[in-house]
């Protein structure tokens, strides 16, 4: 029996529809989680008041009766920015993780491995300790410094890797080395910090979290992440080719070094743009792409958007659980992400017997 082009096309379309269905399902789960998250919290406002506040703020021409100032503060100043930031951060980090895992053909790549998280932590710690005062936390000194040091780490990694021919191994090894360097510098700066408050602030920043989300932060963060993720999706074909190996990529006319460099810049920009505002949020960029890959395979045209949705879902779900499980006490999102994500990941790993990576 021979397979005709029409059969292949039919098979391709069927597979494509299945992938789109998976992406749509995750999207629906995400919307449901967002609504639940918007409805529940330590304070009393529930879904009805939440929707009223959103309509009141977004559609003033409808002349809705103004909700109570308490409801506006709870929904508009606290709950909604936090949900939006969770969506942006989760999507951005997971898309960046998926891209770099593909480009570097390594399933363990994450912002930690590439040294970016440690660099951000050092930048923030430096700003906290050497800043005029800890009150600088309320400004953008810490955010700016964390962002700059992320980019600096990327430049250092790039330069070291370039000396070794820009291979994926050299990028990873350089990233690990730079990560250790910045981790040591964080420890050093904590050790010599002149005030206990500064040490406390550094620890708090390194734990990461979404409760510092504000609309101003979102306005700064969202365009950066959105543009970079779109550019990543546009790179999907190149990543598909790169994930098959450097030799294949070269034989298909793809300049692998250039693609690697472009994606390093994109990944760093997204990660830096997020963790500069949220503090270090680990795990999502490592695991969300794997979970997405188990559902829809390795085609990066679908994997990047699917990972982004999965990352957004994971982070929002974790943050919601962290907010609700011991109300009004909160559990930091990084802890919940690992506690919920790891068992789920192991379950998928055991249940899906085939290898998902490559």
């Amino acid at each position, binding site marked *: 029996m021979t397979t005709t082009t029409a059969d292949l096309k039919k098979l391709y379309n069927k597979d494509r529809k299945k992938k789109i269905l998976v992406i749509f399902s995750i999207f629906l789960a995400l919307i449901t989680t967002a609504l639940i998250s918007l409805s529940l919290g330590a304070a009393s406002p529930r879904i009805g008041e939440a929707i009223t506040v959103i309509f009141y703020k977004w559609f003033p021409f409808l002349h809705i009766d103004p909700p109570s100032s308490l409801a506006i503060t709870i929904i508009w100043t*606290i709950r909604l920015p936090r949900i939006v930031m969770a969506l942006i951060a989760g999507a951005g980090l997971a898309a960046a993780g998926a891209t770099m895992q593909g480009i570097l053909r390594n399933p363990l790549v994450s912002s930690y491995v590439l040294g970016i998280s440690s660099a951000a932590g050092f930048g923030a710690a430096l700003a906290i300790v050497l800043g005029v005062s800890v009150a600088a936390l309320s400004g953008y000194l810490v955010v700016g410094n964390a962002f700059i040091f992320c980019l600096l780490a990327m430049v250092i990694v790039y330069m070291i890797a370039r000396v070794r021919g820009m291979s994926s191994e050299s990028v990873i090894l350089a990233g690990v080395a730079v990560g250790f360097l910045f981790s040591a510098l964080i420890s050093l700066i904590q050790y010599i910090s002149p005030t206990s408050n500064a040490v406390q602030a550094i620890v708090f920043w390194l734990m990461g979290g979404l*409760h510092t989300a504000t609309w101003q932060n979102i306005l700064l963060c969202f365009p950066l992440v959105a543009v970079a993720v779109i550019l990543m999706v546009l790179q999907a074909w190149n990543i598909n080719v790169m994930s098959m190996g450097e030799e294949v990529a070269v034989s298909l006319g793809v300049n692998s070094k250039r693609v690697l460099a472009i994606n390093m810049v994109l990944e760093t920009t997204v990660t830096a743009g997020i963790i500069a505002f949220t503090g270090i949020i680990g795990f999502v960029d490592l695991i969300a792409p794997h979970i997405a890959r188990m559902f829809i395979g390795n085609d990066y045209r679908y994997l990047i958007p699917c990972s982004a949705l999965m990352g957004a879902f994971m982070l929002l779900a974790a943050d919601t659980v962290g907010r609700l499980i011991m109300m009004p006490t909160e559990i930091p999102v990084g802890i919940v992400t690992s506690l919920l994500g790891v068992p789920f990941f192991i379950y998928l790993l055991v249940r899906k017997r085939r290898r998902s990576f490559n």
Partner: protein
Amino acid sequence: MKKLTMPIIAIILSVALLVSASAGVYMLYFSDKPSSEISPKIDTTATSVPTLSTSTATVSPTPEVVQEVPANITVVDGAGYTVTISLPVKRIAALDTAVVEILCVMGLRDLIIARCDSCTMPPSILSVTSVGSNDYEPNVEALIELNPDIIFCSSMLPYNEASYQQLINAGIPIYVVDTTTPEPVNPSKMTKDELYNSPTPIDFVCNLMRNFTAIVGHQDKVNEYATWAQPYNKLVKDRIYALSPDQQITVFLEWYSYPYRTFVTQSVYQAGGINIAENQTLYSPLLSPEFVVEQNPSVIIEYILSTTHDINDFIAAKNDVLSRNVLQNIDAVKNGRVYIIDWSARDGVRSIVGYLYWAKWIQPNLFADIDPAAVNQEFNQKFYGTTIDGTFGYP
């Protein structure tokens, strides 16, 4: 085998992350409870345990006067350890901020030969050799070389088992002091009389000092301090006793630089307030910002750890809270009732100053005639013989 490598690595990595996360939860919510709650070794009442046994020797200051003092003394310290100390004590390493001040008030400043960087009060202590940044990780070699007769430290040092054991092995007795004031249990359910009779930080520190006298003497200095501090203590108790329940106001306590992390200390009641976190089971939980907003506290008190006591740190802390978007609609921020207290003004001999600050901030009408800053200077003048520049509460 090669096919199995990736899943095995992934499982190992996942399990490691799970363990890390569990450890994180444990550390976050259990390890920073007061030491008395987390370690079976710690016994807050143990500081008041009297001498268990003594042996005696004859000391003859002059041929005419013969005085018997113990050659060594065995006591149980604040962590529940039995410690034998040779007397008389002439060289003291004091590694905790509150303990240093207690010893100085007891007139023992000249016996202190080692401190930590965090011990900066009274200023005369700065000339003493520092043996590390804090008492969790002192420089063991330097301490052994200084050869103190006793080390006074907080419950942090025993957590560093290696250093603690090395010092014990070197023959230096270590007396762990738990300076954390025990909290009244369920003060919201207490009668007025029960609350009145429950110990305040100042009652606790006076008791602590009395225990020290078994080792270092100077009972007269302890009496002098208690005579000075107790009238202030009674003044606050009496005025709060007269307060009706509807006059109590809500208070949110927060660690500065760790937004929404609070304390479930009930001593807010003793100063005429209600802690909005009073029903939380964890000692230092991270509260939901929306809970804080809904509770609408009338007063916010921020804890700061200041070794320099620079007023600019306090001003910056206050401005940081006042500028938070989320808090703009709560009464405390709208009315500017955000106050900053240094941790050292809540523990130890200076806790009377902190107690007065709290009472004045929470019930300003009741304590309009009280100036805690002036009481602080009175304390400095009386016990250190000098005025000291530095802020402990603001404003």
